[in-house]
């Protein structure tokens, strides 16, 4: 029974029926692209690294914002009771919400395609230089996967509370912590023995390859694992009302 699809449909329609989704998208796109082009023309290189490198930070604000109401609102309004008494396995509801957010994120990514396209058009002007699509595609795949991680974490945060603001904050904080764990900032301060393991589990550390357009299977496995972990936690949280 693919109720996942039904839930997904409802969630997406709900997102786009209010101005909220559009506002967030616009803010995200303007901020991301404004930032990128500001640096791009100063650096003078036809390189999208600046875009990919800083994405994890921009996503830190967009994704908690669009996921915060996912579970919190249902609990507050009471529709949670309605949803959970329907003959649908909890996991399908969790996945439905997750994939709806993922599709939203994909739409956001697709809309940023104006950037590589602009760079591509600019490059043609110079003599015979060509743009290597590999790193760009790689970068976008990486962002897609990273989005999955953020969404899973923030949906879990949303399932912890009735209050959307609290959900936003918990999501934001959790992603930030995970982001910073493997970053050079933190690595300077921890004892030698912790450097390798922290790099292993850190979000940004796993992103470095991708920002250069390199898809390392270890990073992919990492992203998929973290996503699965938080989806599992999310499902458990929903399930917990049935625990004795």
């Amino acid at each position, binding site marked *: 029974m693919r109720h996942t699809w039904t839930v997904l449909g409802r969630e997406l329609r709900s997102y786009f029926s209010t101005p909220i989704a559009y506002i967030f998208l616009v803010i995200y796109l303007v901020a991301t692209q404004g930032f990128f082009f500001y640096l791009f023309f100063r650096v003078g290189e036809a390189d999208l690294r600046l875009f990919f490198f800083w994405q994890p930070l921009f996503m830190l604000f967009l994704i908690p914002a669009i996921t915060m109401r996912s579970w919190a609102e249902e609990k507050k309004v009471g529709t949670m*009771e309605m949803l959970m*008494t329907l003959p649908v396995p909890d996991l399908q509801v969790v996945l439905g919400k997750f994939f709806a957010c993922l599709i939203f994120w994909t739409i956001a990514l697709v809309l940023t395609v104006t950037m590589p396209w602009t760079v591509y058009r600019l490059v043609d002007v110079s003599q015979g230089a060509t743009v290597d699509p590999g790193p760009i595609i790689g970068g976008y795949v990486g962002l897609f996967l990273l989005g999955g991680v953020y969404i899973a974490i923030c949906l879990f945060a949303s399932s912890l509370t009735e209050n959307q603001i609290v959900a936003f904050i918990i999501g934001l904080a959790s992603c930030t912590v995970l982001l910073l764990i493997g970053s050079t900032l933190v690595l300077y301060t921890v004892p030698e023995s912790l450097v390798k393991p922290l790099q292993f589990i850190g979000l940004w550390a796993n992103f470095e390859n991708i920002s250069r357009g390199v898809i390392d299977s270890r990073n992919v496995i990492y992203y998929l694992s973290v996503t699965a972990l938080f989806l599992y936690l999310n499902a458990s949280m929903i399930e917990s009302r049935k625990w004795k």
Partner: protein
Amino acid sequence: MIEVQNLTKRFGSTVAVNDISFSVRKGEILGFLGPNGAGKTTTMRILTCYIAPDRGRVTIDGHDIESESLAVRSRIGYLPENTPLYADMGIIEYLKFIARMRGIPSDRVNGAIKRAIELTSLQAEITKNIGQLSRGYRQRVGLAQTLLHEPDIMILDEPTSGLDPNQIIEIRELIKQIGREKTVILCTHILPEATSTCDRAIIINEGRIVADGTPDELVRKARRGATVVARIRGPESTVREKLGAFSHVRSVTSSPAGPNDLFRYDLSIEEDIDLGEDLFHLVVAHGWTLTELRHETASLEQVFAQLTGAEERKLEARG
């Protein structure tokens, strides 16, 4: 159809549901009555698999709520308290969503929605978004979604709360009509609802069942079943003694009602028997004067108040 055995549920240190057991026959409309906070909603949430009990067993149509949760949920149409709905959806959009979630095959979805809309008379507002509907119509949407999959069992938690008197009558008629062939549990603290709509009533207070029977049975079983009120002119102590001597009279209280030995006597009787004739003959035999004779049958309200302590508290308050 529904068997509840020794159900217990605790929230922290409060016991919301305390070892209750009851059963509901197929086709019965059961009223689940109790003051706010008595444990009605908690019990319904356990039956509908929203929360798990700490102890006890519930079987619905032969399926256990814990091991066969999906089977149970597919057999129940549930309207939670406060009728939670998605305000940003249109009525048909919402009903389609519920229909799909209930696993109704795509070719039957439209037919099911049409039927539900007809049964609940939603046609007039069908184009509106749920957030724009009046309370009465929101309740109807809530009812409509319970009907989509034509369940054998309906559980309605305070379906008329917040409605105006006209809307209440409409919804009650609707429930009676729909409930004709279904097993219905109606949770309410509005007693007339139970007397007018239900075949049987269970009164729950502070997590325990304090009464279980048809509305008539409950009224009859109540300790202070009925009161006979008489105004008699005669020597007060003798009158009181003679009145108290009648069988089934539990107690007699008197209060002055006028000059010349006119007293009002309240006789509390055990069962709803007709004391009228005997009392009349007694008065005539002693040469007293009877100026008023009235029979007050206990109402479900009195039963309820008595069983749920409201009357005790009122007496305490009077001091």
